């Protein structure tokens, strides 16, 4: 490889054109990643087993694995692991889907209509920076301690983000495109469907990804505060029984869930919006 290409690869890896180099680099990267995680696991194991950190404060990786086996086979305090994962995911997806189904249309409307935007945008802009857990207590009072208040909480977490990004997506549609379509004789509905929507789609999907991440964080917080099942509940319950191994297990599960959900949305994004970046 020429000198410049090497320099480029070092500074802006994504700009490297060579495909063979790319594949080789991918493999090396993967191996390095695996190595990195392995070193971390080994370090963790060592710290705990050698007693540098008390074992009851930091269980060893095998301890956490044993806890996983225990929870899968014998359940946790009368609940199965599947039950808890289901509960958390159910709440998350319920609130998120409700927010998406109502938020995207509203955002599209707000982006297209100055009147609607002027009437509603101030509410959305006030809701956005407001941490959802801060009004949880009101929701509990209004909707009870069950899943309805949690569902409302997740809905209110995701809704403003989705509305704002959908509206922004519509607003960012290049005017020339709309005008071009109109000069070709397209009706407003067709303009919307074939120009506005596809142009706005990248931003809408970005908003969905951000909203999902926020909702995921919120569902766990809500379960930490007031729940009788779910992964967040498991964490807080395990802490009262000083079961740090179960806490670590739940954190790992939550992390994997988060990565999976984010990855799924990213894949959806790539598949559905193959035109992203080709402006």
């Amino acid at each position: 490889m020429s000198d410049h290409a090497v320099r480029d690869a070092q500074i802006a890896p994504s700009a490297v054109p060579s495909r063979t180099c790319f594949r080789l680099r991918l493999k090396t990267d993967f191996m390095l990643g695996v190595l990195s995680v392995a070193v971390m696991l080994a370090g963790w194991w060592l710290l705990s087993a050698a007693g540098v950190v008390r074992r009851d404060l930091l269980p060893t990786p095998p301890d956490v694995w044993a806890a996983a086996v225990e929870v899968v086979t014998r359940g946790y305090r009368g609940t199965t692991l599947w039950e808890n994962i289901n509960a958390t995911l159910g709440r998350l997806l319920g609130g998120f889907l409700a927010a998406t189904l109502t938020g995207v249309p509203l955002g599209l409307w707000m982006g297209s209509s100055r009147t609607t935007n002027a009437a509603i945008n101030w509410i959305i802009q006030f809701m956005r920076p407001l941490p959802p857990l801060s009004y949880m207590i009101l929701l509990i009072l209004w909707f009870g301690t069950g899943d309805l208040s949690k569902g409302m909480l997740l809905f209110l977490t995701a809704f403003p983000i989705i509305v704002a990004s959908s509206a922004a997506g519509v607003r960012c549609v290049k005017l020339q495109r709309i005008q071009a379509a109109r000069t070709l004789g397209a009706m407003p509905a067709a303009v919307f469907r074939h120009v506005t929507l596809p142009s706005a789609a990248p931003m809408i999907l970005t908003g969905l990804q951000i909203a999902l991440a926020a909702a995921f964080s919120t569902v766990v917080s809500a379960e930490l505060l007031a729940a009788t099942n779910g992964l967040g509940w498991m964490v807080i319950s395990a802490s009262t029984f000083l079961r740090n191994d179960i806490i670590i297990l739940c954190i790992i599960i939550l992390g994997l869930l988060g990565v999976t959900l984010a990855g799924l949305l990213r894949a959806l994004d790539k598949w559905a919006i193959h035109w992203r970046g080709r402006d």
Partner: protein
Amino acid sequence: MRTLPAWTITVLSVLLITAAWVGVTSGGLVRDLFLPGPLDVWSGLMELIDDGYKGRPLFLHVGMSLYRVGAGFVTGALVGTALGLGMGYMPKLNALAAPFIEFLRPLPQLAYLILLIIWLGIGETSKITMLFLAALPVSAIAARDGVANVPPERVRVAQALGASEWQIFRHVIFPSALPEILVGARLAAGIVYGTLIASEIIAGSSGIGWMVMDAGRFLRSDYVFVGIGMIGLAGIVIDQALLFIERRVVHWAGR
């Protein structure tokens, strides 16, 4: 058909909602526990300013929350940005650090707060460490992407002009990456703020988030509303302040 200017519509909308609020609460349709009226909220605010909350002045609670946000955000954003710059510069570092960054980013922060409290105690350290870890991945990824998106021609031009590695970094790469770094910082600040309030609600004894939770205990909805209002306001202020800085510092963004 004449349409009203946008700001008029907004004002009308605000007035409408306020009127509805006043109507519902003073008409006795809803108990003041569920929804306090504007006057209740105002008197609550006055009381809090005069007498503080549970033995501590209001500004102390607000100050504690802001201090925690500041400490967590600044440390997390600085370390994260530095790490991200390194990751963008050295693909090997990126490969080594990426698993942890990508795992940490979607991980609900409050879940590991419980663990941090067990390890680091109930004081400020556990919360600020959590906030540090909340800001880190977002800043790192933003910085890394910022470096990765530097147009290679700029670098080549600098090299052609005989610039040293450090000069290239300082005058080409860093400024080119700066817009993305600052956007990442703003995002991180938002996450840190939301996480802080949640942590005060779940495991706190002071701060504005805790105050909302504690006032809600005995259904002092007027204090709760004051608290929520202040939390929202502070969030907007922080976001706008960072936006202002962003626009001033990277005035060339988008060109």
